């Protein structure tokens, strides 16, 4: 199946700004899905609210565009009630880790078989450029005219600590790697997280004098390195890319089948 067969052309053009990285994530995701040869009927995409969350409407899967921060909670209901479906949940950084932070850590703790994609552009784009829990310190935003004093989360460390059994990171510059990671994440049985550093030239780039989309993507090239590389040892400020966690633990829906078995034995 060609990549374009996954798209609802009726609903284009999309709402994203010129230079936005979300389209690259979409491209990468569709190539990953295509390479897996999955049927469109087996895939449910659940999203919340924000620029990134509009991704679901453009795709020819079962799509559930929900409320701000709660996509993983909706997805948990879909998955547990029909475990044979594949759940993909694209979220923005504010959606996933500010308002949705509680659902994020608990979905990870349960190890329910859902693929969470955190499209991290370090800003609330749809509302016009407010700082997010992933902006980090010293960032200019419409709600931080004197620069942020808030520390940011590290998505990888947070996911690992919360119990996610697959955790990876890449960027919109490293699109081949991103496709491979998304493929691995979807194949993984358990809660998988892929953080994608993506550019918002309209709000983050402009306010923080990072240039346009090209300059921002070059920044991803220059400031990231493969996980465990020598470069990281020499320059701790580099952001690592690749797979950080990949382990087998009981998946939630499978574990619940044992509950059903025990309950029915007692009957």
């Amino acid at each position, binding site marked *: 199946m060609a990549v374009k067969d996954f798209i609802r052309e009726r609903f284009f053009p999309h709402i994203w700004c010129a230079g936005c990285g979300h389209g690259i994530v979409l491209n990468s995701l569709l190539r990953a899905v295509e390479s897996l040869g999955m049927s469109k009927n087996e895939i449910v995409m659940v999203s919340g609210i924000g620029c990134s969350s509009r991704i679901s409407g453009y795709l020819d899967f*079962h799509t*559930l*565009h929900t409320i701000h921060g709660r996509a993983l909670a909706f997805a*948990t209901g*879909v998955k547990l009630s029909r475990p044979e479906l594949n759940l993909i949940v694209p979220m923005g950084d504010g959606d996933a880790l500010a308002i949705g932070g509680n659902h994020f850590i608990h979905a990870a703790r349960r190890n329910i078989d859902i693929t969470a994609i955190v499209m991290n552009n370090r800003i609330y784009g749809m509302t016009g450029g407010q700082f997010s829990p992933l902006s980090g310190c010293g960032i200019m935003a419409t709600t931080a005219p004197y620069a942020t004093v808030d520390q940011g989360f590290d998505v990888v460390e947070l996911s690992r600590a919360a119990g996610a059994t697959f955790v990876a990171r890449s960027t919109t510059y490293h699109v081949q790697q991103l496709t491979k990671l998304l493929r691995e994440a979807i194949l993984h049985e358990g809660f998988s997280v892929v953080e994608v550093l993506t550019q918002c030239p309209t709000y983050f780039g402009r306010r923080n004098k990072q240039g346009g989309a090209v300059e921002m993507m070059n920044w991803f090239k220059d400031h990231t390195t493969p996980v465990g590389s020598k470069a990281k040892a020499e320059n701790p400020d580099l952001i690592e890319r690749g797979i950080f966690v990949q382990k087998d633990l009981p998946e939630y829906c499978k574990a619940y089948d044992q509950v059903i078995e025990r*309950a029915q034995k007692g009957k």
Partner: protein
Amino acid sequence: MKSNVKFVQGNEACVEGAIYAGLKFFAGYPITPSTEIAEALSARLPQVGGKFIQMEDEIASMCAIIGASLTGHKVMTATSGPGFSLKQEALGYAVMAEIPCVVVNVQRGGPSTGNPTHVAQGDVMQARWGTHGDHAIVAMTASNHQDVFAVTVEAFNIAETYRTPVVLLFDEVVGHMREKLVIPAPGEIPLVERLHTSVPGGVDYHPYLPREDGRLPMSDFGGVHRYNVTGLFHDMWGFPSDNPGVVHGLLRHLVDKIENNTYQMARYKEFCLEDADTVLVSYGSSARSALHVVRNRRARGERLGLLELQTLWPFPAAIVREKCARARSVVVVEMNTGQIMREVKAAVSDPERVFLANRIDGTLITPTDIRNILRLIQGRGV
């Protein structure tokens, strides 16, 4: 004793009603005084091949049941005041996206943490207007366990028929009180199952295009029709739209499908109304005290009657008007500051003859409380 006769709490009667109706998925979070519903379902659902999940919070519970409903299952969550507040945004999503689901609120005293282990009926208006924006909602209640069971089954039937969330507005006394429950035989109460589309795969399916009878057949997630579900105003494909015609049409549809069927959804019971010159209007555990007063006063020759409402929303104004038409006075008996009284005043031709007998201190309103109000109305002093 026959196995279908039980001595249970009201919360358990609700659980039995839900299982009877075909509940297959419950998501919840512990909260007094509704916790027994989650506890009982954690045991009962896996026995019938269903799923129970304890979520991380009240919001997540509401969201999870909406997700599960889309895969074709009958779903429910249960909570009390603070949790009901937290669920409101997702409840509105279920209204907008037209997702069948049942939300139980076993009322306790509020506002805020209030009086968790005591009775109140202060969430009547929250059930009506708790979520933001213009909308319609269905809310039902009951005063005894046999009715809790029946109303719970009815809530699932209405949710499926009209593709809507239905709120079950019980209260702490009904939830925790123990009394007899007779479980009806299968088929004794008719069940409404999910209406699935007959459109075959490969043909364009419109999830939000009503049939001639107004109903919207659904297609399960995972089935042959892939479509979009959103909380934004949307067209017949479920795709976002801010076209004024689409927005107006959808909002009218959401309100009309409930309000235009007020009579079909109206459940109520009446006691001695034929010749009553004083009509008590009540619901939930308050109606138990009201009924006691009616029986007691009738024995003394007073012409007292009771209209017990089981459907609170959409408010059955025409029925209330008709039942109260011949009464010299109407006394609304409830445990709040007059939330249903205002609706009754708006329904009857002469609001001046509507009075309130209430109690708002966390204890059950007593027959004496009601009798004292009756004496005041009759000019006899307390």
